[in-house]
């Protein structure tokens, strides 16, 4: 039996020891002397969060199918173990072999949200790997980042040796082969990194330099050597039916956040909402075939025994074969005790029918994401959902017995007026009125329950709204108060519950989202001051962060409230995501003119992304047209 890295006396005194002992169903075991490349995959958050991530399951499966490669996992130790590891000087270890992370050849860290950055430093620190790439020695692992936050890697660029830009399925074999060659021929770390930079999708931060203008904006960003590409191109899987996808996903003992079989039905999105980063960075839309998904559903249910299955994608209602897929899954598995949990679907006759089959109407709720309170602001953000569509969906649902509605909004959008803000309350009230007008008293299943939530808008790189300015904390809170106030004026205020997200986290996320290399100093300061698990509101300490920035001499306002000109050079402009900056500018102007852009199925807007997959022609979905 393998030996654990932690002794009995530690495991008996920490919360959920099963986070650290491995041996989960479908865990891959390989003798360490049978492989020549060890890759440790990390999700920098607690086990239950990290184990819920589909991307790691896909890459874990992919790496372990490669000859001579062993992929293991590591997650952030929870506070209790973190403390013990520091006190007793225990190095962070891989779950599978229980050996130190530092013994691996690669440490791959997925960056799913900005607020995990101190956890990235924790992982490096506990692994005894130097935090800065420049301080690493020959026997340190190559630290490689990936995931959505790497689309602006600059605030954390100095902590990573490589960023893999785009989808992981395409270039890892090449990268690992290159590594093997280098190892065999005795090449040094920096020689390997130089060669890695020649592989499509690989960004090696140490090979680039930035210069700044006097006002602090970026002046230039360029490679230090001629053989290093000026721009790094995002990688995409061209054919999603002919690629890696696990048949035997890992099944944790303890309950994970996402504790079910996940079927990823498509990548990309045709909608073009102007605030949405996922909507641009995953372009172009690519669907998986019905046959592929049916087979994977069966294999995964058989191999895991899960009693629940869910679909995953952006805007799932746009998937061409949605109705066939859902009908198949419900007909074949619902009767076998498998609960098919639905993604948020556009509310119409079809989705209501499906919901009726798999959910308890009395308990389930309808979800709408209008994002903006008025039609005007919805045109600015290109959110195609109209009041008419919402009310029509709600009408059908109320007649079907539903009486719980969730509404999602954003505040702090560019051009926003009080009217747009108050629209949140007015729309919520209209939905409540519709219910009371439509359903006679004796047929009502109690009061209607409307929960309206708002988050504060954060401009993200590679979106048409990347030029937008943010606000100060007090201004955000004032906006939320205005909504609350307006809700209280409404006729049906007792049926409406209004929640809003924290404003201080928003500011920080905003800084990281559009930050440059200078920001990294503040992250190191915050970590050294004890910031950790910032994505957890219980542990987030805004005051510490303010001090960390102050100590680094960085003005957060520069990244948040400053107005950016259309010709400003952004820190992330060297990344080529397929979507052109010209298109983003066009869309920014359309936003300012409140002009709606049709979705990709209706008309191609020439964003540029089709070239990544369709070689000079427009996307297949556009050719086939809307439904």
């Amino acid at each position, binding site marked *: 039996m393998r030996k654990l890295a932690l002794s009995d006396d530690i495991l008996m005194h920490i919360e959920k020891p099963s986070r650290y002992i491995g041996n989960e169903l479908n*865990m891959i075991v390989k003798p360490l002397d049978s492989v020549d490349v060890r890759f440790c995959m990390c999700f920098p958050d607690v086990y239950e969060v990290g184990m819920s991530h589909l991307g790691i399951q896909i890459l874990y499966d992919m790496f372990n199918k490669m000859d001579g490669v062993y992929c293991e996992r590591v997650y952030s130790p929870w506070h209790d173990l973190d403390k013990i590891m520091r006190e007793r000087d225990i190095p962070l270890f891989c779950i599978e072999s229980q050996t130190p992370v530092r013994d691996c050849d690669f440490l791959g860290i997925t960056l799913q949200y900005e607020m995990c950055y101190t956890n990235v430093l924790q992982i490096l620190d506990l692994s005894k790997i130097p935090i800065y790439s420049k301080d690493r020695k020959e026997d340190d692992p190559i630290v490689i980042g990936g995931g959505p936050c790497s689309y602006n890697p600059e605030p954390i660029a100095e902590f990573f040796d490589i960023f893999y830009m785009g989808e992981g399925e395409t270039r890892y074999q090449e990268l690992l082969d290159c590594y093997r060659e280098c190892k065999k021929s005795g090449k040094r770390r920096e020689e390997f990194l130089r060669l890695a930079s020649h592989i499509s999708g690989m960004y090696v931060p140490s090979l680039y330099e930035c210069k700044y203008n006097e006002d602090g904006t970026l002046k230039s960003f360029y490679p230090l050597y001629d053989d290093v590409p000026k721009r790094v191109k995002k990688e995409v899987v061209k054919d999603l039916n002919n690629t890696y996808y696990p048949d035997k996903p890992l099944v944790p003992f303890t309950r994970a956040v996402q504790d079910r079989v996940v079927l990823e039905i498509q990548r990309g999105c045709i909608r073009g909402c102007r605030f949405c980063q996922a909507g641009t960075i995953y372009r172009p839309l690519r669907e998986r075939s019905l046959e592929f998904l049916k087979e994977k559903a069966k294999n995964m*249910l058989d191999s895991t*025994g899960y*009693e629940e299955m869910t679909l995953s994608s952006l805007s799932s209602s746009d998937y061409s074969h949605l109705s066939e897929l859902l009908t198949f899954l419900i007909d074949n598995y619902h009767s076998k*005790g498998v609960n098919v949990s639905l993604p948020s679907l556009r509310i119409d006759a079809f989705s209501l029918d499906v919901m009726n089959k798999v959910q308890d109407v009395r308990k389930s709720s309808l979800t709408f994401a209008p994002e903006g309170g008025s039609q005007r602001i919805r045109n600015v953000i290109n959110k195609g959902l109209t009041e008419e569509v919402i009310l029509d969906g709600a009408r059908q649902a109320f007649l079907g017995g539903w009486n719980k509605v969730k509404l999602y909004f954003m505040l702090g959008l560019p051009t926003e007026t009080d009217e747009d803000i108050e629209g949140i309350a007015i729309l919520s009230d209209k939905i409540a009125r519709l219910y009371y007008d439509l359903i006679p008293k004796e047929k009502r299943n109690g009061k209607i329950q409307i929960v309206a939530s708002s988050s504060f808008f954060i401009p993200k790189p590679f979106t048409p709204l990347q030029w937008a300015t943010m606000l100060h904390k007090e201004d955000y809170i004032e906006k939320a108060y205005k909504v609350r106030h307006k809700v209280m004026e409404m006729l049906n205020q007792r049926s409406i519950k209004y929640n809003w997200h924290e404003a201080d986290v928003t500011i920080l996320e905003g800084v990281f989202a559009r930050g440059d290399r200078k920001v990294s100093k503040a992250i190191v300061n915050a970590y050294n001051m004890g910031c950790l698990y910032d994505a957890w509101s219980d542990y987030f300490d805004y005051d510490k962060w303010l001090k960390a920035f102050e100590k680094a001499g960085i003005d957060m306002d520069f990244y948040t409230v400053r107005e950016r000109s259309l010709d400003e050079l952004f820190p992330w402009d060297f990344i080529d995501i397929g979507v052109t900056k010209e298109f983003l500018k066009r869309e920014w102007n359309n936003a300012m003119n409140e002009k709606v852009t049709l979705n990709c199925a209706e008309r191609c807007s020439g964003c540029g992304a089709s070239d990544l997959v369709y070689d000079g022609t427009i996307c297949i979905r556009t050719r086939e047209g809307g439904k």
Partner: protein
Amino acid sequence: MKVRIKYSKTGYMKYIAHLDMLRYFQKAIRRSGIDIAYTDGFSPHQKVSFAAPLAVGMQSLGEYFDIEVNSSLDEETSRKLLDDTMVEGISVLNYKILPDNAGKCMSVCEASDYFVPYMAGEISVSDIQNIVDSFMSQNEIVVYRKTKCTEGEAEVKKYIYDMKAMEYEDYDGNKLKGVYMMLATGSVYNLKPEILAVKMGICDEEQAKCNIVRLETYRRDDEGDFVPLDVYE
């Protein structure tokens, strides 16, 4: 049809909590293809009930739970089907189709026996037997006991059904010396082995929590004798 499953949980699987074991077996049953019965209602769940929960840190060679099935293959084939889906450290030892009048494992369970390793230094088996003999020769054995409803001193000698020195080979093949004890378990009276182990000085509380092995769980048959939970004539 009611079925009793016996399983073992050894090595590091002692760190898997009782509720997680429950979820683990629900999935395992689905993987095995056993024709388990589901409850009616909007979200049907498997008809499963577990016997005495095992504390985190304790290993066991004799854990039980009951399931209800619509149909069943023969006992050994079914046992193997389920055992083939296990992870290292958990084994399915028996699949026993129960007589109709068998009570639930939770309510019939009355005793368990344990191996408690001697951890207070080098010692011979005969010296351990001496410790046991002198401990059991007391007229009363009073321990401090804490349960959900009561807390305080309690006389527990009548709940110790057997005790003697024992040698035991663990999952890594190490030969351990220690004490065998058979104690009252279940809803009527539950005596924890770690309390006696500490009292006898064979290990401290911390050691007891992560080194004891439950060997078997028992019910009383019609004659009043203890038989393992999966033994029915």
